[in-house]
């Protein structure tokens, strides 16, 4: 893995990174200053942002459209809950078990990636998340069934940080989110990341160039599983309660929608998308009971008009600006989205 290559930087990258840097600094400073419920709210956004990131990595970069990552997220959360009920509340043990169980689920997705692609892969992940959703119902005693499961032992499980009091937990979550985002950005900017992107765009071409398509896909799936498990672990610590819906289709689809709205082809996109959509649905559900309607409308609008998400749009606008500065005529505007979800170069199955 060589150092990040800047030759293939998307348009508007420098300014984008500057803004992200500013946002990160602001995130460390502002919510604790504002106080009240804001740190808790932002940490929820960050947790679901990480979840969306794991979906975005596998669906955006890898073009393996996975609507089952809720299973990974939920399993990690349930692992924490079930262990805490068994009396185990050592924080690192819980973290390890969350990661291990999540990785096991990801291995399943990895197997699917080897055996199937495109719509069959999507359907396999769909069935998997449905199956996992039903498991608590089948094993009521251990998992709490429909009622969900609490995480016991209070703040011991979260290294003594209380999610509801003080800013410790918020900074903890924020640090993890920033580290994961930075690591993901570093990996994806490297040669391996470029290879992964190439495999996502056109597997046949990448295979012809000698890349081991299956190996890269499994690696990406496992990495995405680690991110999702971290998110699930953090969720369990913060909410102190896990329930069936985390495992199911609705949650998985939410992750995909967050990633899509923010822009699947980027690291910060899913985080933005998760924050934006969760904030929007929170605002709408307090004011009315029509949240399904609005989510549906937002989804339709995003899919029809900004399928590359917020970050994708940003890059498009910057690309046009750079082209204009370089002297291209108005009518020469080439399709700069040729390799994104909305573009013409969709030679792979999905």
């Amino acid at each position: 893995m060589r150092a990040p290559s800047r030759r293939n930087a998307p348009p508007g990258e420098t300014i984008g990174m500057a803004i992200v840097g500013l946002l990160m600094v602001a995130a460390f400073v502002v919510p604790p200053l504002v106080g009240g419920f804001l740190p808790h709210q932002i940490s929820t956004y960050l947790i679901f942002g990480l979840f969306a990131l794991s979906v975005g990595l596998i669906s955006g970069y890898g073009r393996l459209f996975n609507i089952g990552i809720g299973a990974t997220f939920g399993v990690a959360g349930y692992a924490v809950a079930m262990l805490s009920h068994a009396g185990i509340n050592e924080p690192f043990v819980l973290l390890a078990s969350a990661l291990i169980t999540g990785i096991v689920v990801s291995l399943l997705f990895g197997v699917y990636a080897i055996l199937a692609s495109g719509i069959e892969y999507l359907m396999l992940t769909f069935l998997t998340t449905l199956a996992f959703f039903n498991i608590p119902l089948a094993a009521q005693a251990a998992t709490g069934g429909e009622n969900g499961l609490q995480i016991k032992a209070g703040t011991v499980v979260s290294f003594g940080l209380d999610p509801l009091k003080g800013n410790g937990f918020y900074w903890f979550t924020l640090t993890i989110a920033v580290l994961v985002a930075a690591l993901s950005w570093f990996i994806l900017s490297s040669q391996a990341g470029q290879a992964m992107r190439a495999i996502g765009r056109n597997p046949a071409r990448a295979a012809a160039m000698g890349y081991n398509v299956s190996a890269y896909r499994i690696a990406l799936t496992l990495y995405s599983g680690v991110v999702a498990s971290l998110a699930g672990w953090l969720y369990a610590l913060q909410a102190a309660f896990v329930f069936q819906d985390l495992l199911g289709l609705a949650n998985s689809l939410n992750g995909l929608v967050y990633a899509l709205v923010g822009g699947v082809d980027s690291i910060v996109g899913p985080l933005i998308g998760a924050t934006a959509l969760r904030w929007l649905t929170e605002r709408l559900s307090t004011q009315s009971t029509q949240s399904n309607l609005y989510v549906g409308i937002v989804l339709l609008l995003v899919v029809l008009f900004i399928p590359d998400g917020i970050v994708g749009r940003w890059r498009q606008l910057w690309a046009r600006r750079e082209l204009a500065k370089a002297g291209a005529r108005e009518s020469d505007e080439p399709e700069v989205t040729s390799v994104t979800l909305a573009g013409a170069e969709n030679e792979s199955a999905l």
Partner: protein
Amino acid sequence: MNQFLLQLLNGLVVGSSLALVASGLALLFGVLDIINFAQGEFFMLGAYILWIILGATHNYVLGLIAAGLVLAIGGGLLLLVITWPLLGKAQVLILLATLGVSLILQQLALNIFGGDAKIMEPPIAEGVDIGPITYPLYDLIIIAVGMGLLLAGFFWLRYAKYGVWVRAVAQNRSMAAVLGVPVPRVYLLAFMISSGLAGIAGGMLAPVTSVFPSIGGSIILNSLIVVVAGGLGNFRGAAWIAILFGEIQSVGSIWIPPVVVQLLLFGLVILLLVLRSRRKTALVRL
């Protein structure tokens, strides 16, 4: 024995209406590579239309026809408008678009009809004696009509002009277009048939299950599983598997708790998909 017979017949009722919805889905997938997440909501709307017509005119047949027609035309046009701009793009976008439609329709139904379950009386209340049990005649009619429609569908696909064209487009869109098949018309027809089937299924099952806004949720899940298990795009396969599913769920629940039956079915379908994928020989799994 009584239980078994009862559940066997119940399975056929569930299975044949599931088959109608699922073959609509399979048709869309085969022709257009589209997964219509709103199919469950079309089912729900069909049921509501029947409820409206029954309330106004007490004419069941009229209600059923209206359900089918309104969904065929309305659903067909809606799908056309939503999916046409997305046809060249990543498939998951269409899936998410239909998901958006499904959410909107659910909420609209909640607003217009309220969240309570609308109960309808079946038009025929008699029972029929089959061996030791008495089974509602209406349910038997559902089985008959469902099977009849499916059979008609098979023959239509095989022999009717547009049926053959649908299969041609499903097999090779560009070649069909080159050979003179009016592809956009085939698209629209596929949309209309798929939605119409869901509407009719909804109308038929409404007196049996009553209707409420979120009924579409489990319908779409079961239908998708059936379509996947039958082989995406395989219309006949989807129908058979739907009936099989209905039977397994009904009969299986005699001895095994329903949740476990569900899980077993999921596991079976996953295994089926995995095995089927492995049989396709490819040096690199692309």
